[in-house]
């Protein structure tokens, strides 16, 4: 989770703030900050799909999923979780827990 946070922050900073980290908070809204425009959203989705090997569905495209580092990070974790193949080992692991 922490790693995802850091990766997302790096992507947002490099791509939308051109390397200038203005010290935004993890729960700060990208829309409110005005750092993501219509093309920015497409860039973001492209990054998520390539970097995390996840598929962002149309229904996922709501600000509640994608509008802050916290939201993005939770969204990515959920997506990875739901796409993780079910193996005998993972079932056993779950049961053990």
């Amino acid at each position: 989770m922490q790693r995802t946070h850091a990766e997302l922050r790096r992507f947002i900073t490099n791509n939308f703030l051109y390397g200038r980290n203005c010290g935004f908070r993890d729960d700060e809204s990208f829309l409110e900050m005005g750092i993501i425009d219509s093309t920015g959203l497409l860039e973001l989705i492209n990054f998520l799909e390539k970097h995390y090997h996840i598929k962002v569905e149309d229904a996922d495209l709501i600000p509640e999923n994608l509008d802050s580092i916290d939201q993005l990070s939770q969204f990515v974790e959920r997506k990875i979780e739901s796409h993780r193949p079910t193996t005998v080992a993972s079932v056993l692991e779950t049961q053990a827990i």
Partner: protein
Amino acid sequence: MCAIAGICDALNAPVSVPLLKEMIGILRHRGPDEWGIHTGVGIGLANARLSIIDVNRGHQPLCNEDGSLWITFNGEIFNYLELRKELISRGHIFSTHSDTEVILHLYEEKGEDCFRDLNGQWGLAIWDARERKLLLSRDRMGVRPVFYTQVGESLIFGSEIKALFTHPQVGRELDLAGLDQIFTFWCTLPPCTIFKNIFELPPGHTLVFARGSLEIHPYWHLNFNRPPEILSDDHYIEQLVALLTDAVRVRLRSDVPVGAYLSGGLDSTVITALTNQFSGKRLRSFSVAFTSEDHDERTYQHEAVRFLHTTHEQMECGYDDIAAAFPDVIWHTEKPLIRTAPTPLYLLSQQVHDAGYKVVLTGEGADEILGGYDIYKEAKIRRFLGALPNSPRRAQLLRRLYPYQSNLQKMPDAYLQRFFRARAEDVKDPLFSHMPRWELTSRLKMFFSDDVKSELAGHDAISELFGQLPLEYFSWDGFAQAQYLETEYLLPGYILSSQGDRVALAHAVEARHPFLDYRLVEFASALPPRLKMKALNEKYILKCAFGHLLPLTILQRPKQPYRSPEGRCFFAGSGEDYVAQALAPERIAADGIFDPWAVSKLIEKFRAGDAVGVKDDMALIGILSTQLVLDQFISHFQRGGSLCNEHMQNCAVS
């Protein structure tokens, strides 16, 4: 069309003829046909002429019968024949058939008030030797430019800033407040320019310099005060037909052939169709075609050419052409740009010049005065949405806004609604229509260096503009307010300047804009908004009035604003050397305006092919053009070359 320059010294110091030659010499692209200089006690006037009316006798500077009044004039007075007749009937004796002389006699008759009688586009200076008074005047809409500065007791003026910079005592320094305005509105707010202590005479104003004191007065202003509706729609349509037809008729007054820009859009097609009604000969038309399909409109251009039987020349423009010409364009615009769009028009005027044409009619101004721009439509939809913010059906209208923007079309509903969100309190903002554009452009300021940011702290371009608004603005409806912001600021500051006068006259081409005839502007400002945009149908009255003169495909086509390929032009192929030099980190750091780290990240994004957003494009072009302004006008300013060449005749000093 011409260039003017001059110096007036309140202490009657003699004005140097070689200096005047240098000042006008650097503007000779505007008037390559002949030049002239007049000097007297404490005054020097210069003119470089593009001969259009009374080619053989209309030399400038020109004086009245007793030599007490002198004029240097850039522009055209379209109603000069009517004014001349009237002045002759009052006993004035003319020695030429030029429009220039009409202004002098009218000034004798009416003094400073004479400018109210002129229908035209001008930047001029009159020296009144009896009163020892210099007047500078500029047309109502700001088609032609006038800049000035004061050094000691002298007023120095010219059609372009570079003429002022040839004066050895005029300093050349960037004005950060002007830069901040460009990175908000795409233009500066007159009298401010991008340079410290260099001022632009606002459109519709007269400057008077007498006995060392300088005063500036408006003689006209744009207003949208609406009289009660007493006419039927048909009457309004009839009036529009009569006014625009006459605006075209008087703009065909010329002793050299007149051509037309034909973009394939509604406005230039209407103008060309009307021109055909007056011209016995086949009209010559010109257009830009783009190799990039997204920007190209050649199909519509061919359609218009076939329908209107013009002899057409098309200038094909690719990515490399834009990158190669861009530094020259900046030399002419004399201010940073946020878009490349002036560049293809710079290349087009070269082609017009090579074809032997000096004058073209254009469709410029229709979108401003008759409500054609997307920004008006966007504001209308956002207002509608603001009344019921959560209506998904209303949000769907937003997709109709920008059919040519594929990214926006792909945008999910929830985001679309958020981007164009209008809260009840936003709708009440008098600047409602333009805030999204200004906020978007202002985001480019994140590239400013820390020093520039701290120097600009407490500085707010939007408040400056707000402070300039006339009181009556606050009584107008939202549509009129949007039109005012567009017509008062972006039109003279960018459309008619960087994208108009400067790039056309770079190659000695004079553009005339029938839609900006002041009679038409006054008529359109008083029209009910429903006739300008009916529901979401833009320029509705224009379509009603002239639809029968146009091919159906052009009448019914979706509106596409004129755009040209942006940032990727500068990274196509091996790229231009000047781009790498201007944007090199050490150069950015030395110039101190932008943050070298942020600029290098932006360039990385372009090189990787990841720069796809409008903000990336605007940032790159804004930064590159600012760096070019610094280089060409501050670090390495080159004074003018030799003035007189073999093509120039009638060169005279009096």
